[in-house]
């Protein structure tokens, strides 16, 4: 036992080094004076200045933030409905199909989701004339669809761990199911909703492949711009952008985690 644990602890330590070294190197070299990303030439914040003067990146970031905000909000509603239905409703027609459809996007390769949604949008256009143009709306639909799968997983596990007696008591006392959901279920699963929303937001902000397929000329998201820049080689302003994203996300996750702690103990 002891021996296997000490081996495991060394392996775990190395695993964490492996996980975090690239992130740390991204951050360090975002403050590098030299254009050569990997040779240290002194401290500088000029890449941050350059980043905020790049209209292409700023415009794409704004598009991505809007898409991520709307997709995450829609995904929360749809994903929570799906999770609630799957956990609380014993039996209904299509339950197996629904549970299959909600978990498949988690593993389905992005190229397949992207291609299939694009072809759907094009067919829909020739049948109903909608969506007339691809852009933000089609990206939002695509992102909502795969984000709701992640939301459903998070909410499902919270719902099935939740003590159901409170809901039952309220129903026995004559409360309407809708009211029980909003007054009792929702507050209990709120932490799962917060992390589901944050997860959806970051996944949407991060998606390159699906957005590349379903977007149109009008909407270029941040990952599309990053990918076209990075393909040509490393550039320090992308390091600066990465540092900002990583710090904002880490702060968001840590705040969410600490805010949710006291509720858990409650």
């Amino acid at each position, binding site marked *: 036992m002891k021996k296997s644990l000490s081996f495991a602890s060394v392996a775990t330590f190395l695993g964490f080094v492996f996980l975090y070294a690239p992130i740390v190197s991204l951050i360090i070299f975002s403050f590098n004076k030299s254009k050569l990303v990997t040779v240290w030439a002194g401290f500088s914040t000029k890449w941050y200045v350059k980043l905020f003067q790049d209209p292409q990146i700023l415009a794409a970031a704004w598009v991505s933030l809007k898409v991520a905000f709307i997709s995450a909000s829609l995904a929360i509603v749809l994903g929570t409905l799906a999770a609630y239905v799957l956990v609380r409703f014993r039996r209904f027609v299509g339950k197996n199909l629904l549970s*299959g459809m909600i978990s498949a996007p988690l593993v389905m390769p992005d190229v397949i989701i992207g291609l299939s949604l694009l072809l759907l949008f094009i067919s829909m256009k020739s049948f109903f004339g909608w969506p007339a143009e691809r852009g933000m709306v089609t990206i939002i639909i695509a992102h909502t669809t795969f984000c709701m799968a992640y939301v459903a997983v998070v909410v499902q596990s919270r719902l099935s761990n939740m003590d159901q007696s409170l809901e039952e008591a309220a129903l026995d006392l004559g409360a309407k199911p809708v009211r029980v959901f909003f007054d009792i279920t929702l507050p209990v699963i709120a932490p799962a909703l917060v992390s589901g929303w944050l997860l959806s937001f970051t996944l949407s902000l991060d998606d390159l492949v699906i957005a590349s397929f379903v977007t149109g000329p009008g909407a270029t998201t941040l*990952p599309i711009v990053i990918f076209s820049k990075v393909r040509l080689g*490393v550039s320090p302003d992308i390091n600066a952008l990465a540092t900002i994203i990583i710090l904002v996300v880490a702060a968001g996750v840590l705040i969410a985690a600490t805010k949710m702690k006291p509720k858990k103990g409650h």
Partner: protein
Amino acid sequence: MSDISGHNFHTTFYHWLKRRGRTLVISVPFWWLIVFFLAPFLVVLKISFAEAIIAQPPYSQLLTFAEDGVVQLKLFISNYGYLLDDSLYISAYWSSIKIAFVSTLITLLVAYPMAYYIARSPSHRRNILLMLIVLPFWTSFLLRVYAWIGILKTNGIINNVLMWLGIIDEPFVMLQTNFAVYVGIVYTYLPFMVLPLFTNLVKLDESLLEASSDLGAGSLTTFLKITLPLSIPGIIAGSMLVFIPVVGEFVIPALLGGPSTLMIGQVLWNEFFSNRDWPVASAVAIVMLVLLVVPIMLLRNAQNASNEEGA
């Protein structure tokens, strides 16, 4: 009297609303997924039987209505024949499966001790460690893959450090090789492997381990005879969570791989964006889906098994 009938009306109406409400609540996510997840695959299937033509959109219609009212259905199976004829596609499928298989195995070997250690940690430390596993997953995947370019390239961090230490004189070529692709895959998919393994290992009954060591089994024997067999559902779930998306991976081979890296996700991307041959791209996607059916079933079975265990 009127009071009772009023009550009756109220309850019937309420039950009606309740049933309707139930259907409504089910149908919103259900139809969303039917329309935006399931139906698209049927469209892909349809277009994979079309012919590429120069038009907008660039494929032929399967159904044509002739003037005398005859409906013609033209299915071009040539797209699938094309996949078989051109050795590029078969070797791309084969090499994607190989890369996915090997990287899944490496990810498992890296993840298992981590999951084991975290599962055996005291609960306060366990939460922090789990958080540290999940945190990189929250930060941009694209940017984390990008970070490896700076680490692996010829004048990158690893080569600079090794040359500075005098271990090597000439830099290693690591970027734009399959090695870089493996590193990138193991790196980005590690959390997907650790989490299901952890969920499984944390449920392991410690008294079994104690009994085994009381009976004189060494730690290796205990591991091989008890821990490993009991963790097989976790191993399957984690492996499939890595294997399935890696088969179709595009970003990692595009950024870290080189000319010798051949993955079907990239082939599909090029077929679509560069060659603009939508029917062939669709056929590539359909064959990929067919290949992934068995792994997806394995994953669902493993997940259902662990759900039932938890309940």
